């Protein structure tokens, strides 16, 4: 009965809120910490595979399935306890985990690990991963690389064979046509898979932290994340975010968008117009016009959701739950639900139906 009443009240609140502001998704967040089975509260990455949820934490790889946690560590063959990145081969179900000490493949419980000493992996610190066909693309602290899982061949990408000025690659997104590398301090690199040609996108302001040429190029050189979907490239940096459609750039800054912060750890495009931004001050959702932010309040830690409309008007939405922490590191989708990696726990955002 209590649950029914709570749902009714929540629906009323949601309906009231939505009547006044743009319709943005509202979630009830269920949070996981070490207290309820999470391997570690510091969650670097989250990945959904159907009913299963993988998390990369500072102290192991976690699998949440049937409401139970299974934890994999170095004793199971994991390359390192700190798991920074995750990617799924959706054809085979194999999970790739990038760690602080190498790259691991988890295949039906068996873990095989590749390091810079025992394989062609360019560096043991694996920040980003992407699976494309038979290739696993890897972003490491010493350049990018590609493992062809059929031939076992490693191909390295660095300052010797690409326009990469710095070799600290932070994220990678690969498709059969294009591969994008987010390079910390060296913009975005694009590989045309058909021609083998590399292109580079830089901040037209150089390394200047002032934005002199807004919407004329990449927002900043310290790029943390790339997401290529529907031929749109979404880019996250430590100084704002960018959207590039192949011809035009659109940049997002906290001061002129609904971003809660310019410091973005990860951006994930849903399609050409919708994207999620994982920042140091909350989780943001952009629907092409309006913005929503989900976080514990920066003032008092209470659950908070705000919606910013096209005019810049910001409305508070009454919510009773929020992500586990406002330092957001990752997100993935499970139907209409979201799973969120934060610096102090994992959050399952259960989408609430609104009228």
């Amino acid at each position, binding site marked *: 009965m209590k649950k029914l009443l709570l749902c009714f009240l929540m629906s009323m609140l949601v309906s009231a809120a939505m009547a006044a502001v743009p319709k943005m998704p509202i979630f009830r967040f269920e949070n996981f910490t070490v207290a309820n089975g999470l391997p570690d509260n510091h969650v670097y990455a989250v990945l959904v595979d159907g009913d299963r949820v993988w998390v990369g934490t500072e102290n192991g790889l976690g699998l949440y399935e049937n409401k139970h946690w299974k934890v994999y560590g170095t004793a199971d063959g994991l390359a390192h306890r700190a798991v920074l990145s995750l990617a799924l081969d959706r054809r*085979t179900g*194999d999970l790739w985990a990038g760690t602080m000490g190498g790259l691991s493949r988890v295949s039906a*419980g068996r873990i095989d690990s590749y390091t810079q000493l025992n394989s062609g992996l360019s560096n043991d610190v694996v920040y980003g991963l992407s699976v494309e066909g038979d290739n696993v693309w890897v972003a490491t602290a010493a350049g990018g690389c590609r493992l062809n899982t059929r031939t076992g061949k490693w191909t390295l990408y660095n300052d010797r064979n690409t326009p990469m000025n710095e070799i600290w690659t932070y994220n990678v997104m690969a498709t059969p046509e294009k591969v994008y590398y987010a390079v910390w301090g060296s913009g975005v690199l694009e590989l045309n898979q058909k021609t083998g040609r590399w292109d580079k996108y830089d901040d037209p302001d150089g390394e200047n932290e002032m934005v002199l040429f807004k919407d004329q190029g990449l927002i900043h050189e310290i790029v943390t994340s790339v997401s290529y979907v529907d031929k749109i490239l979404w880019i996250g940096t430590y100084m704002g975010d960018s959207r590039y459609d192949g011809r035009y750039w659109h940049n997002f800054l906290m001061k002129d968008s609904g971003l809660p912060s310019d410091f973005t750890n990860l951006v994930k495009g849903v399609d050409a117009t919708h994207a999620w931004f994982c920042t140091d001050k909350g989780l943001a959702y952009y629907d092409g016009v309006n913005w929503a932010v989900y976080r514990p309040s920066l003032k008092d830690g209470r659950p908070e959701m705000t919606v910013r409309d096209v005019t810049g008007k910001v409305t508070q939405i009454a919510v009773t739950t929020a992500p586990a922490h406002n330092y957001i590191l990752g997100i993935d989708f499970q139907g209409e639900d979201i799973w969120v990696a934060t610096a102090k726990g994992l959050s399952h955002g259960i989408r609430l139906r609104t009228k």
Partner: protein
Amino acid sequence: MSRQLSASIVIATVLLAVFAGPDMRAASRTAKSATQAAQATGSVASTDASQDDPDEVRAVPLEQYASPVELLFSPDGAWLYVLCQESGEVQVLDASSGRMLKRIAVGRVPRGFALSPRGDKLYVTSSWDDRVAVVDTRLLRVIATWRVGAEPTGIAVDRTGTRLFVANRISSDVAVLDAKTGSELRRLVAGRGASYMTMAADGSRLLVTHVYPNPRGYRTVPESEITIIDPQTTRVVERMPLHSIAGTFHVALSTDGRLGVVAHLHPKNLVPLAHVEHGWIFGDTITVFGPDLGMGPGSAVEVPLDELDRYFSYPFGVAISPDKRRIYITNAGSDVVTVVDVRRLLAYIHAHPGGFAENLGASAYYVEAHIAVGANPRGVLLSRDGRRLYVANRLDDTVSVVNTASNRVDKTFALDGPKTISALRKGERIFYSARYSFQGQIGCTNCHIDSTFDGLTWDLEPDGFGIGIVDNRLLEDIRNTAPYKWNGSNPNIQTECGVRTERYFWRSQNYNDRQLADLTLYVRSIPARPNRWRLPNGQMTPAQERGRALFVRSVDNFGKPIAVKNRCVYCHSGPMGTDQKSFDVGTGKKTDPSGLFDTPQLTNIALTAPYLHDGSARSLEEIWTVYNPEDRHGRTNDLTKDELNDLIEYLKTR
């Protein structure tokens, strides 16, 4: 034909046999040469090659031994398909009489075949061509060949006939193919050396085994697995661990799927080989699993087949009778089929809940019979009613038909092929037989699976635990790489295979001079498999070319000359990649009697991890990233990671 010409043909044939080896003989023949040979001898070549792709299926080389390895019935049980590894063909026999109906060339070194659910197509892997041949069973001819992965071995078809699963031994994975077009849909990670598979009768599971142990840490107990695939989702759903196992062969499921059995070797490579006399080097075992064990989900029990003073070497093929009362296992090194009474076995298992894998007294309780069959029995097949067991005798070119009621061989079908036994063939029989070792425990093939290697390190010396650990080296194409042994102490193969093997391995002196000569002949003839990293046109990829330049370089990245003896190409010179001398390259351990090691040949080096004399390097990379801190094993510490990767790409082509 003149007498001189006949003599020339005979001599040429013998020379070819001696210097090419059996697989190479099959491999080196093309359709054209076979046809010429057929014309010369007046025989008829059976060249049912695909019209679309005639060069892709090799002709049946008429002089080749058949070497049957696998068996299948046609759906009505009237025909017996016999997969012949050396002659590269499927021989079709009348299952009752053994009368030869047809010979179909399918490609080089076929290792597995499977029938479509309707029985209209027979899919055959040719492991040296990296292809699957599709045989129309009505026309009895190859109608297509499809390019697949590296060294395809086992093959299975799903229940709907829409998907094929192919185990690739070199890439250690299972390819999922569209059964209509042969196009590959995906690869699934399997165990190292993925080879044999069986589909559950209800199509719910595909079980895959692998012949080399999965990579693990240095000097740790070997581990293997049965990879279980859901054929519907084409995903690996489970990996059933096989602890202490290396060398896993056929796996079988009962018709109801409740009882499974897998044949394998249980090596004890962490103790000195001197312990042969203690019965302590190889266990010949099977693992039974499934709900019929009555021990809960996922339970599996390793079951020894050996006896206290008699071994049943190299369990390979397995079959479960339709009524689940018997398990049949071929012991390829002992030339017998072991019959296990399942009821008694289950009773024994329940009475010994702690396991009994190393109890050599156990088998007396559940082994019902040993049936002597032909030489090197491999695949087995039960008739649908379970009354007859067919056994492929690889080195006899025969199929034994066993009456399962009496456990006796009723009939023996002779396959087409040469009827005289050459010295080479005799040598091959010796290689694959365990009869020459103490109590018939082991044969050469125990460590050199299919004449290759086993992926293990061994303690071969009788001087205590952990002294003189050595990695098992590949036997392919070694005839010009003397001396032998890691310390280079054996000047020729005769010494390597003779006294040294008999004394240290077999703990017996059973070879006579002729037998040793035959064995030496065979070992000298073992060819190298096709190298999968070389481009077909003989050219190199840019990375391989860069790696080759590093291999032969004389100046390091700092512009300093590299001492001649510290260049890769100095020791690893010549066509085999060895100067046949010993060097101290800084890899010796305190436990090694000497730091001097024979320069190993580089033949198919990509396949043979682990590396270095003691197998301490788990990968080619580790040879230099871990075990070459002072540049004594070549000047490499100036290399960038890119360059090291290039060097390795080149080495893989050797």
